[in-house]
């Protein structure tokens, strides 16, 4: 009996030990020495770019036979929540990407960014677009993608109806009325998911031209009950009340909103340039451009649109393979490599001398140099709960609440969460 007991416990113990060993070897696989080559992990959230990145990595490995790159991709929601943990452990994400704003701040304060300030490849990027990856004069991350978080509109439809791009709030409403008269919903607004956090940027850009507005809000020097935010909420309410956005907007997700624009039932999609490719996939006959609502009179307008330099490339300070990681970023920042990435993913980039081949990218690249755009204000809210309060006030107004009451409710949450 005793022998059987010891055999049983011995088997369980051995099983646990073997399990632990197997677990350890599996966990270290993503960032190990494979043969003579050093394997590095590239951690990011762009699953849709995997194929083109695989090709770029294959070329990189051919040029650098002593380095192997493995992609570790996580959905963006999960990435926001778990990236920091993985970087802390150090085995994943020798090269990684960061969102600007709250995630950048959090990674920087945890000390997981390697200082890239002195690296030669920094000069491959457009200097004016990489400031978002800096803190106290140190370049911690290099934004790779440049997106415009402002409505995409059906240019062909506008031309057909003789509509001009509105330059003021009055013109915007006239344009929307004309669309309604033609049984077209002016704006498809995906309120169930990304709509509020995307559209708030262009709706407030001229109501609060001060780029430090959210820093002041977090410091207690500004309030959501002040004119700039109450007016923004009133403008949202006007869009809902006049039917400029579709009915039941808060229950509409981005796929449904895209379908409305692709089927030409709606004229604008209140998301951003990153949806242009998807819209063209749904309806190749569309002619698209970007259009941000100017919510003030023409003479008072400061900005024409919103930009976000994101997908910020960085090196993990906990990595043992920093040189190899930097070599990979250097490779990604070469104009010909960046051009391949840009054209195959339909993204504008922050890298200098990129050649855009696709019609959609060429047609909208004037937004990079010729238009006065402002960095996405939402990303300047570094406290996630304050950001949620701001967005909730928009949802509250679209749900029927009075703008001032919604602003007051949100301000209460802001005050509860000030650090």
């Amino acid at each position, binding site marked *: *009996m*005793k022998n059987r*007991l010891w055999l049983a*416990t011995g088997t*369980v113990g051995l099983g646990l030990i073997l399990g632990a060993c197997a677990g350890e070897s599996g966990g270290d696989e993503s960032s190990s020495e494979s043969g003579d080559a050093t394997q590095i992990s590239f951690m990011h959230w762009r699953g849709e770019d995997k194929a083109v990145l695989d090709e770029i990595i294959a070329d990189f490995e051919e040029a650098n036979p002593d380095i192997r790159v493995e992609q570790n991709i996580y959905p963006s929601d999960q990435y*926001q*929540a*778990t990236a*920091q*943990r993985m970087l*802390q452990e150090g085995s994943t994400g020798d090269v990684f990407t960061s969102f600007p704003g*709250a995630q950048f701040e*959090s990674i920087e*304060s*945890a000390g997981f960014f390697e200082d890239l300030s002195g690296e030669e490849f920094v000069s491959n990027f457009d200097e004016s677009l990489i400031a978002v990856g800096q803190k106290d004069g140190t370049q911690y991350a290099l934004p790779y993608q440049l997106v415009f978080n402002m409505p995409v509109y059906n240019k062909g439809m506008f031309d057909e109806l003789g509509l001009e791009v509105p330059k003021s709030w009055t013109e915007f409403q006239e344009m929307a009325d004309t669309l309604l008269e033609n049984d077209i919903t002016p704006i498809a607004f995906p*309120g*169930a*998911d990304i709509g509020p956090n995307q559209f708030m940027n262009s709706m407030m850009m001229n109501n609060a031209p001060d780029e430090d507005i959210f820093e002041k809000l977090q410091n207690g020097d500004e309030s959501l009950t002040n004119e700039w935010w109450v007016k923004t909420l009133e403008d949202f309410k006007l869009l809902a009340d006049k039917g400029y956005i*579709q*009915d*039941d*907007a*808060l*229950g*509409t*997700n981005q796929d*449904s909103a895209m*379908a*409305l624009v692709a089927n030409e039932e709606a004229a604008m999609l209140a998301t951003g340039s990153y949806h242009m490719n998807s819209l063209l996939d749904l309806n190749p006959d569309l002619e698209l451009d970007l259009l941000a609502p100017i919510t003030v009179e023409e003479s008072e307008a400061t900005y024409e649109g919103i930009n976000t330099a994101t997908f910020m490339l960085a090196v993990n300070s906990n990595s043992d393979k920093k040189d190899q990681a930097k070599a990979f970023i250097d490779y990604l920042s070469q104009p010909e490599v960046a051009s391949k990435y840009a054209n195959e993913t339909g993204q504008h980039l922050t890298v200098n001398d990129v050649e855009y081949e696709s019609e959609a990218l060429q047609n909208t690249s004037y937004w990079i140099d010729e238009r006065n755009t402002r960095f996405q204000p939402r990303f300047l809210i570094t*406290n*996630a*709960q304050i950001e*949620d309060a701001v967005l*909730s*006030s928009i*949802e*509250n107004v*679209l*749900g029927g609440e009075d703008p001032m009451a919604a602003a007051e409710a949100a301000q*209460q*949450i802001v005050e*509860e969460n000030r650090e």
Partner: protein
Amino acid sequence: MRISKSIYLFFLPGLVLYSLFFLYPTISALFYSFTDWDGLSEAFQFVGIDNYTRAFTGDSIFQKTIGNNLKFMLTVVVFQTIVALAFALIVIKNTKTNVFLRALYFFPTILSSVSVAFIWAFIYDPSMGILNQMLELIGLDFLAQNWLGNANIAIYSLAITQVWFHAGQMLIIFVAGLQAIPEELYEVAKIEGASKWQTFKSVTWPLLAPSATIVVAYTTIQSFKAFDLVFAMTGGGPNNSTEIIATYIYEVAFRSYQFGYASSISVIFMVIIALITYLQFKALRSDRVSY
């Protein structure tokens, strides 16, 4: 009878796993709930009961999540228990049709919660969803709603999804409980001239109390843990109207990096569940009878 001391070794694997995956994290959460740990840094400071004070007096969203959770739980417990019991009474006999129907009702339970969330988000879509389209088709278009976008009803829409998801599981518990009731008691009730309702009230329900206790307690815990369904369907919106305690803990811990505060909410969460479950057990235990 003398029991060998070596018998206690059989407890060891279970005890190790329980300690490692339940006891240790629970004690850690309790410890960190008195700190300002951000979840990343090695350094943290003890803040006493500040986190608890903040939860009860300085965090209106947390207070809202408790209300949301209670609405969700009550809706799910009431509807899931009624639906599961009603269907169990229908399919109690072991005929081929009933065995098939039990399997059919149980089917949603084996789906992953994310799949269920996607299916129901599509059903609820205000413009393309089949629910509103069906209502329009049968002339009940005045009932069509913005099911997940209306802050007043979104939490109940989620609760209905939860009922659909788990009622089949509870049905099986009720069927087992109903089949365990001795047939003789029904025969006596019939001889005594009891109506169907009297038979249910005086025979079925009292003897079903142990099953009902399990169903209600399990449903309660399940509804507090409905993180994945809520996260995938609404993400807590609109305007925090579907934010429940579980999703809020995630939000505070993994988006705001306030692990200390999130730990204190977790501890409060644990106490709430324990308290409600205890009260339910106590209430339903008093209904138990034996003949």
